[in-house]
């Protein structure tokens, strides 16, 4: 067989496959983020366009990225560049009285300089009201990492001013779908928290579901029907390498990584009904945790790895139960409501977010575990798939707007809300990454 014939054969065979893995780095349709609320109590901040060394044209407007990141939290409003009276880029050039006149609480200045084939980004944060410098740092980056570095600066500024870690440098995994029936295209994508840099991880004509992050942010587990049955895959985001980890008869669903990354909780119905199992990813040993004729699904680990919460309709309606990962009895956790499902823990383990039904409407709630208090975060009718931001300040979820699937975020306690959509098709099943180091 000649090389040409072999290549043609390979082309035919690869077209015949229903799913395609896509090399990280390919970019796709951008997500658009609108800030939809929560700016009343926002603090005024000025992020001055960063100075650059002579002749350098950085690929990103670092100050604009930082400003947008801070505004998206709902806790800040940024001074438009046109209203600035001076454009200092070093501490020596700063006269805080200029910024006090503009009623700013805080000021960020900085510079971008060439460093080898990459950049060095330095910044200084001032407390305008207190009249002093409060933070200063510099970060080195490759030229491709400039935007991520800007997100990191935003996170450092946010943490200094609010006492809480920022989430601008985290990422979001989500599912997109376009078309219907046999012509459907479904993809699993990962984008930066500001919607930029979307990358397709896997694409298929069959459903893809339930993306779940490993705690190091380097792997995603998901369910794909590419072989015309549900199977669970674990994929490394850097290399693209993936493992088929569960493909039993029946459903293979709801993967959830343990906090130590060693185990994967999942739902299997191989013995006739849906139960929770834990797969040790190293030894491949499978342990059955629940054994009930009702539906048990949607497991989520407590941050300390000691407990799992899951959905069960063993009491007649779907409710959230908690059990030890060592096994044993399960106790109901969810309070009021005749439909509570797909719960997951907040990063501090003190509360859970879940889907609840209120007067026939499916909405997102946060429930405090110690006191049982609930707070409804969304106002749609088909809201689902809630996921905490890695700092616990927000929940991202899927909702329907004008008949189309979009994502939204809501602040748990004060702060901004956002709507995230794609130029075409549906976006759903968001999963917020852990904090990326």
């Amino acid at each position: 067989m000649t090389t040409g014939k072999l290549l043609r054969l390979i082309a035919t065979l690869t077209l015949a496959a229903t799913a395609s893995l896509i090399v990280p780095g390919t970019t796709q349709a951008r997500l658009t983020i609108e800030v939809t609320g929560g700016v009343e109590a926002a603090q005024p901040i000025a992020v001055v366009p960063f100075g650059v060394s002579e002749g350098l044209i950085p690929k990103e407007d670092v100050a604009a990225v930082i400003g947008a990141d801070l505004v998206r939290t709902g806790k800040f409003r940024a001074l438009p560049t046109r209203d600035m009276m001076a454009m200092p880029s070093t501490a020596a050039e700063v006269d805080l009285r200029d910024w006090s006149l503009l009623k700013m609480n805080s000021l960020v200045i900085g510079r971008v300089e060439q460093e080898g084939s990459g950049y060095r980004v330095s910044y200084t944060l001032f407390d305008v009201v207190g009249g002093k410098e409060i933070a200063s740092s510099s970060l080195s980056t490759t030229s491709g990492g400039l935007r991520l570095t800007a997100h990191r600066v935003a996170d450092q500024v946010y943490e200094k001013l609010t006492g809480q870690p920022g989430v601008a440098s985290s990422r979001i995994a989500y599912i997109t779908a376009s078309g219907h029936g046999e012509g459907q295209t479904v993809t699993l994508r990962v984008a930066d928290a500001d919607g930029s840099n979307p990358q397709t991880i896997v694409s298929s004509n069959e459903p893809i579901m339930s993306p779940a992050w490993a705690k190091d942010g380097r792997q995603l587990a998901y369910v794909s029907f590419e072989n015309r049955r549900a199977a669970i895959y674990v994929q490394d985001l850097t290399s693209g390498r993936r493992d088929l980890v569960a493909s039993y008869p029946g459903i293979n669903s709801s993967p959830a990584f343990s906090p130590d990354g060693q185990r994967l909780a999942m739902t299997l119905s191989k013995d006739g009904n849906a139960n929770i199992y834990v797969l040790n990813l190293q030894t491949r040993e499978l342990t059955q945790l629940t054994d009930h004729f009702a539906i048990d699904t949607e497991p989520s680990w407590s941050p300390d790895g000691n407990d799992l919460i899951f959905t069960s309709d063993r009491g007649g309606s779907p409710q959230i139960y908690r059990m030890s990962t060592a096994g044993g009895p399960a106790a109901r956790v969810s309070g009021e409501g005749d439909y509570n499902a797909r719960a997951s823990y907040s990063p501090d383990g003190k509360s859970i977010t879940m889907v609840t039904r209120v007067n026939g409407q499916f909405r997102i709630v946060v429930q405090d575990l110690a006191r049982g208090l609930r707070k409804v975060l969304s106002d749609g009718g088909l809201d689902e798939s809630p996921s905490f931001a890695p700092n616990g300040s927000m929940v991202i979820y899927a909702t329907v707007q004008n008949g189309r699937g979009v994502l939204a975020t809501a602040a748990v306690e004060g702060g901004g809300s956002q709507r995230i959509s794609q130029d075409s098709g549906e976006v759903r099943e968001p999963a917020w990454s852990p904090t990326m180091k």
Partner: protein
Amino acid sequence: MIPTLMCPVRTAAGRLGPCLVLSLWLTGCAEMPQETAPLTGMPPPTPSAAPRTTVPTASTETPRPTYRGPWEDPSNPLYQRTIYFDYDSAEIKPQYLDVIRTHSAYLGTTPAQRVTLEGNTDERGTREYNLALGDQRAESVRKLMLAEGVTTGQMATLSYGEEKPAEPGHSENAWRLSRRVIIQY
């Protein structure tokens, strides 16, 4: 056009030939995403009926399918292959018992014939819970057909949950049509 690098998906043992050619090719390509061997003791994936290709756009006319069996004949009782369910229920309603008996009787007389029972739900409620609910619905039909004499080897179940609605849209009608098990020959 974005270059999408496609990789072979896991193939069943029956497709070893093409799989081998691909693996030879893959070993020469260091950056290619790869899959490891399946777990030992894990059942092999169900072979898909036919390799699927990229779906043509709506403008192209689909060729007339060849006749595969009596379930494709609108005047045959086997033509009715869908069983509908109530919201959040996997209980088979009495009006569908005849449908199940008709198919069970046919499968009893054609022991080589296999079916897949595809369970589906409407979009209300969570996706993962619905995947389990669709599985329960398919399982309800399977158990009844088993009681009617169909053998275990003739039936497979497959839940799509809410991922394959009968109709797009968010109406009562779309929901009613989506809560179903399809007997696929």
